[in-house]
């Protein structure tokens, strides 16, 4: 319906005319006028390996949760294309700020999967060193970290690490978030700040169609990538189940940031194949038919089909990756069990960089209390 006064009504969120794609669900390479590019067989095999290992990581963690080893696990199943495509486009000096489902990005940043388990086992609250991986710890309060990414990018600008032309120096920052997050004030404020300062930040939104039980149409009635237009920077929708397209689009956006051209919003159009987390029951709110439809668009199968039909990989290769996945799974099980519980008394020392007398006193009381029980026990 077209409004006679204010012009055409905005298009619906289901419209996906502008979806960038380089590899069809059937595994056929297609071109794109802007983002089309070549990939070496090596690179594509690498993507396949990454995605397969990350899927195994996810399946393994899900199983560990079922066996009571983890309190909770947010599955990345189905989103491997978006995550590996994005993650592999990052340079070492780039910095990523994830939400809680970015296991594929964490993988690309060299975070040991066991560290991810630690968080969901309740052994710590995010145990890797962000500066070691240039990758923030998982963030739970939806949207809050998009501002951190923007601020970090403002710091990058102040360090003179944009637009120098030095590929090892120019730095992009990425905020990873979901379709649900786009409704949060913080995310929109991040857009405001990023645009105002032309900060080198890429907003990478995995639109997996759901925010727990709510479809992405509840958050926006137009395609999410268009949100960026309202803030004065470009937005683009890419097939998030297409690792090649995601890589290409992400690469371009990162380069734009590093070159000092400012922020970009990428909407990676994908699907959460699993439950929201292991405590969720998606049968309450979505049709299994939808899930079946999306299975046909699986990010890994299409790469496998592509590799096979072009003779880029043989059974040996697939066998090796499968074995590697088994080994990863086995190691995760083993090391998950072995993760040590934290020492309760340490929480008092973790609050501040400079310990306070107050907390030291609380720690002493705590110690005495614990000791009194040990005494009783003896």
């Amino acid at each position, binding site marked *: 319906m077209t409004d006679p006064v204010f012009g055409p009504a905005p298009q619906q969120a289901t419209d996906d005319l502008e979806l960038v794609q380089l590899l069809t669900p059937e595994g056929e390479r297609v071109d794109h006028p802007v983002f089309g590019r070549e990939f070496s067989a090596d690179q594509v095999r690498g993507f396949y390996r990454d995605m397969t290992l990350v899927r195994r990581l996810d399946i393994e963690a899900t199983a560990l949760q079922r066996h009571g080893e983890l309190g909770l696990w947010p599955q990345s199943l189905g989103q491997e294309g978006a995550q590996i495509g994005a993650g592999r486009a990052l340079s070492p000096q780039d910095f990523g700020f994830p939400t809680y489902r970015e296991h594929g990005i964490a993988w690309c940043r060299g975070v040991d999967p066991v560290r991810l388990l630690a968080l969901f086992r309740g052994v710590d609250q995010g145990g890797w060193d962000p500066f070691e991986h240039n990758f923030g710890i998982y963030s739970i309060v*939806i949207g809050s970290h998009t501002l951190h990414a923007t601020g970090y990018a403002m710091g990058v600008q102040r360090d003179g690490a944009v637009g120098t032309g030095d590929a090892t120096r120019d730095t992009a920052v990425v905020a990873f978030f979901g379709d649900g997050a786009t409704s949060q004030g913080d995310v929109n404020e991040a857009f405001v700040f990023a645009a105002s300062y032309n900060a080198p930040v890429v907003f990478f939104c995995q639109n997996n169609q759901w925010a727990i039980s709510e479809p992405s149409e509840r958050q926006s009635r137009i395609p999410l990538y268009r949100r960026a237009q309202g803030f004065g920077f470009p937005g683009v929708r890419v097939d998030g189940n297409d690792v090649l397209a995601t890589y290409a689009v992400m690469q371009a956006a990162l380069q734009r940031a590093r070159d000092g051209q400012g922020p970009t919003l990428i909407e990676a159009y994908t699907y959460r194949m699993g439950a929201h987390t292991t405590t969720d029951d998606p049968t309450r709110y979505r049709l299994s038919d939808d899930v079946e439809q999306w299975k046909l668009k699986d990010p890994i199968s299409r790469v496998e089909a592509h590799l096979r039909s072009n003779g880029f990989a043989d059974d040996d290769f697939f066998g090796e990756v499968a074995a590697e996945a088994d080994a990863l799974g086995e190691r995760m099980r083993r090391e998950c069990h072995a993760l040590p519980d934290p020492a309760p008394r340490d929480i*008092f020392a973790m609050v501040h960089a400079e310990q306070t007398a107050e907390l030291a006193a609380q720690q002493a009381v705590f110690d005495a209390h614990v000791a009194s029980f040990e005494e009783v026990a003896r």
Partner: protein
Amino acid sequence: MTTMTLAKALNSGLRRAMEDDEKVLVMGEDVGTLGGVFRITDGLLKDFGDDRVIDTPLAESGIVGTAVGLALRGYRPVVEIQFDGFVYPAYDQIVSQVARFHFRTQGKVRMPMVIRIPFGGGIGAVEHHSESPEAQFVHTPGLKVVTCSNPADAYAMIQQAIRADDPVIFLEPKRLYHSTKGEVDESATPPPLWQSRVVQAGTDATLVAYGPTVSTCLDAAAVAADEGRSLEVIDPRTLSPLDLSPVFDSVRRTGRLVVVHEAHLTLGMGAEIAARVTEECFHSLEAPVLRVTGYDTPYPSARIEEFYVPDLDRVLDAVDRTFGF
């Protein structure tokens, strides 16, 4: 008389309130089709439709802020905040708007809104899912703050809160949702919402607890009884305004008071209760009011939360200490 979980009692109470007054709306993240992540709003969408059970965009300030507008239009919104730790994006709307419309307009505007918040720990969750934010709301004039500790109260209090013409922060002890069952008499006349309850009478020392720590204190009282010490347990139920007269009465008899909550020690409810009880019962106190609380650290990782949440031992230990003065 029906036996039900605390979750079911809240669900039934909400349903009843919606039946009684068509202006009552339920809104929040996932409250519709899913029935809420804790299923407290289960079935309401089906029976009351999406004009009255509103799945909202993922934005807490937006939820509370639009609820203010709905209240201004004559509705009585019942807002669900998914977890305690996610109430803070709505904090500005709550403390600067919800709490103040009545004051600011000299009573021309009423703000009959209930903000339901599952709170407290002990469920093995990740960060931001085990917070006890009550003190922040109790410190804010214009809000009323209540918390239930059993199914019967849950059923009655949610309805009373919805009927109240003032904004009410309704704290639900989430670890009791499905683990606690109790009798609910749907035809009983409940006591006033703003009234404390002496949950168990006793003579030697007084315990004050609310929400999830009430059962801890009852357990402590049972153990103490075995050891020959009689503890009185009082549940204020409403944290703002505080009805402390039963506590004053009790302390005048026992001379000893321990306040137990999961929220942090510093400026937790225990501080206020200690200050008021000391002022009111100065000459009756045999010992200073002691507090058994969460520590002044963020809520820790799940594997060690049992060391953080007040437990039987810490409560009994504190009772012992009140006898040492």
